[in-house]
Every structure is written in C-alpha cells, then in structure tokens.
C-alpha cells in the first residue's frame, strides 16, 4: 500500500501539469457540489482547497512540486484583478450617481473593522504586534502586507488572516447579508468588497454585475482608506 502510494506520489510530483490539473479538477468538484446540493460549505474555493490539501497529504507531495504547476494559475491573478475594470466601467454611471453613499458606507465598514479588532484585542489582551497585524485583515493581500510591515506587525500571520477572511466572506457573505436584510445589489457589493477584498469579490461577481462592480470598487477604496486610517488605530494600543 505504502509503496504504491509513493510511486503515484513521485509520478505526480514529477509532472509539471499536476498542480494546475489538480487545482482545476478539485475546484470543479466544488462547483459541481455547489450546483447539486445547496449546502453553504460546498463553496468551490473551500472545497478546492480542502481536496488539494488532502491529495497532497495522501500522496505525500510537497507544496513546491504542486506549486510548480499551480503557480501558473496565480500568474493570472493580476490580469484577472485588472479585468475588474470591465464591470466597474459598465456600472460606472450608477456608482458615480451614488458616490457619496459608496464612500460613506465604506468608511463605516473600515471603521467597524478597526473597532472590532480593537475590542477583540482588548478582550484577549493581545500584544501590540498581533493587534496591528489583525487591523489589515480585510484589505487585499499585497496592500495588507505592506501596511502590516509599516505598522510593525507580523506579515506571515497577516497573509493567513487576510486570505482566510476573504474565504469566510466568499462562503458566508451571501447568506449573512440575506439574514440581515441587505438586499440592494449595490449595498451587497460594497459590503462584500469592504469585508473580504478580492476573494469575496470573485463570489460577488457570480451574484451579478452590479454586486461585482461595487465589490471591485470597494477593494480599491477600502485599501486606500485602511492605509490612511490603520496607523491611527495602531496608535491606540502601545
């Protein structure tokens, strides 16, 4: 049994297409499960990640060998984010008309995020380094890394927090918003983008063009606002 597993594992590790094929296949199973059963945890990203991790563990494949093929998918992340300009352009008239609402509600979101982090930090008596690290959890990864570093936080933890927050938003966002009667597509998009950056936005795009466009806009505005506001909140715990 073990010898067999090792042989398969070695064959998979050596194949440059393995990483990409495994990712697409596992993600595809997630898409199928989501369509077939309307269970909240059957989210394609979540299922994709879990199945890939299980696959790597079962066949004892190290991340580097997987990433050799899979990193070609990450390569497309920048172009895909650039493409968010398309829904933004199409919906721009509506967003422009509501620019005050957009700005005001994203401000509320950024402040709420910082306040929640501050309260949690006080409750758990967190050290400053962890507190400032958590402040950046709702902005897009690259901005979050930069801000965390500037504030004297732990960049590795920041990345984990940011990505997991994004996935949480993508998985539970739609249901949570429905539960709290946030039904307006623009409000939904702003909410998802402000709380869970690009990962949430990838889900928002599936909910509709208006939701996707306002979520995409929220990533940019939230990022900039956090760059400005986070240092002030960071100063609250010395």
């Amino acid at each position, binding site marked *: 049994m073990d010898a067999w597993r090792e042989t398969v594992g070695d064959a998979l590790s050596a194949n440059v297409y393995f990483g990409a094929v495994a*990712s697409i296949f*596992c*993600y595809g199973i997630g898409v199928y499960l989501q369509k077939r059963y309307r269970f909240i945890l059957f989210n394609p*990203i979540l299922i994709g*990640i879990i199945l*890939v*991790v299980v696959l*790597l563990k079962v066949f004892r494949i190290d*991340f580097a060998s*997987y990433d050799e093929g899979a990193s070609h*998918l990450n390569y*497309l992340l920048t*172009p*895909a984010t*650039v*493409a968010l*300009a*398309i829904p*933004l*352009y199409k919906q721009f008239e509506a967003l422009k008309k*509501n620019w005050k*609402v957009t700005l005001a*509600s994203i401000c509320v*979101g950024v402040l*709420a995020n910082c306040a*929640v*982090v501050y309260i*949690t930090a006080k409750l758990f008596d*967190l050290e400053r380094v*962890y507190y400032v690290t*958590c402040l950046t*959890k709702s902005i*897009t*990864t*690259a*901005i979050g890394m*930069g801000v965390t570093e500037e504030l004297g936080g*732990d960049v590795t*933890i920041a990345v*984990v927090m940011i990505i997991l*927050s994004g*996935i*949480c938003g*993508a998985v539970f*966002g739609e249901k*949570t918003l429905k539960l*709290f009667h946030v039904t*307006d597509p623009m*409000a*939904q998009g702003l*909410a998802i983008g*402000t*709380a869970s950056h*690009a*990962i949430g936005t*990838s889900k928002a*795009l599936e909910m509709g063009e208006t939701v996707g466009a306002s979520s995409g806009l929220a990533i*940019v505005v939230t*990022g900039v606002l956090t*760059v400005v506001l986070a240092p002030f909140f960071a100063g609250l715990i010395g």
Partner: protein
Amino acid sequence: MKYLRQIGVILLVSFIAELVRLLIPAPIPASIYGLIILFLCLQFRIVKLESIEETGNFLLAIMPLLFVPPTVGLIDKWQSLRSIAAPAVLLIIFGTLATMVATGAAAQFFLRRQDRGNR
C-alpha cells in the same frame, strides 16, 4: 486573433501597472494600479470594451480558482496562528461578517434616504 489581441491588451496593462508600482513608493500592488489604468483607458476610449470583453470576462469567471494555490500554500503557515488562535478565529469569522453587515446596512440605509430625498 481576436482572443490574442484581447489577452495582449490585458497583459500590456498588467505590464504597465508593474512599472507604475516600481515608480510609486506605496504599499499598493500592481493589480490595483492595473485596474485603475484599464478603467481610465475604457472611460477615455483609449481601449474599446469590445477589444477586451470576452477574455476579461473569462478571467473574472475563473478568478475564484486562482485563489486555490496561494491558500494551499498556507498549510505550513497555519502554525503561525497558534499563539493567537482564539481571537484570530473570532476575527476571521465574526469580525469579517460584522464588517460586512455594517457596510451593507449603512449603504442600504444611505441609499434609501437618498432615494426619499430625490422623490
């Protein structure tokens, strides 16, 4: 040729965005500059929507998949959360959803008030 031109335009914008990132000393990633550059190009008719639309929409459609590999890469890093496990989990789940509900409720409230004002 159509798709080649479309991906060419999107990659060119990404390429320019990387250059911009090198020039501006702020913690902002190339993807954000690229988004803004492409948006401005569309707005000022430098790039026509037709010359990027299908490929752009394809990239948007596969976007969730693109987050799978970087997250799998966190397996070795989950350990780093151990020292703050309880507050981290709380913040990741409830912090994120609280931020989301606050933003959404505020936006909806402001939108409705604005609509009433216009009527």
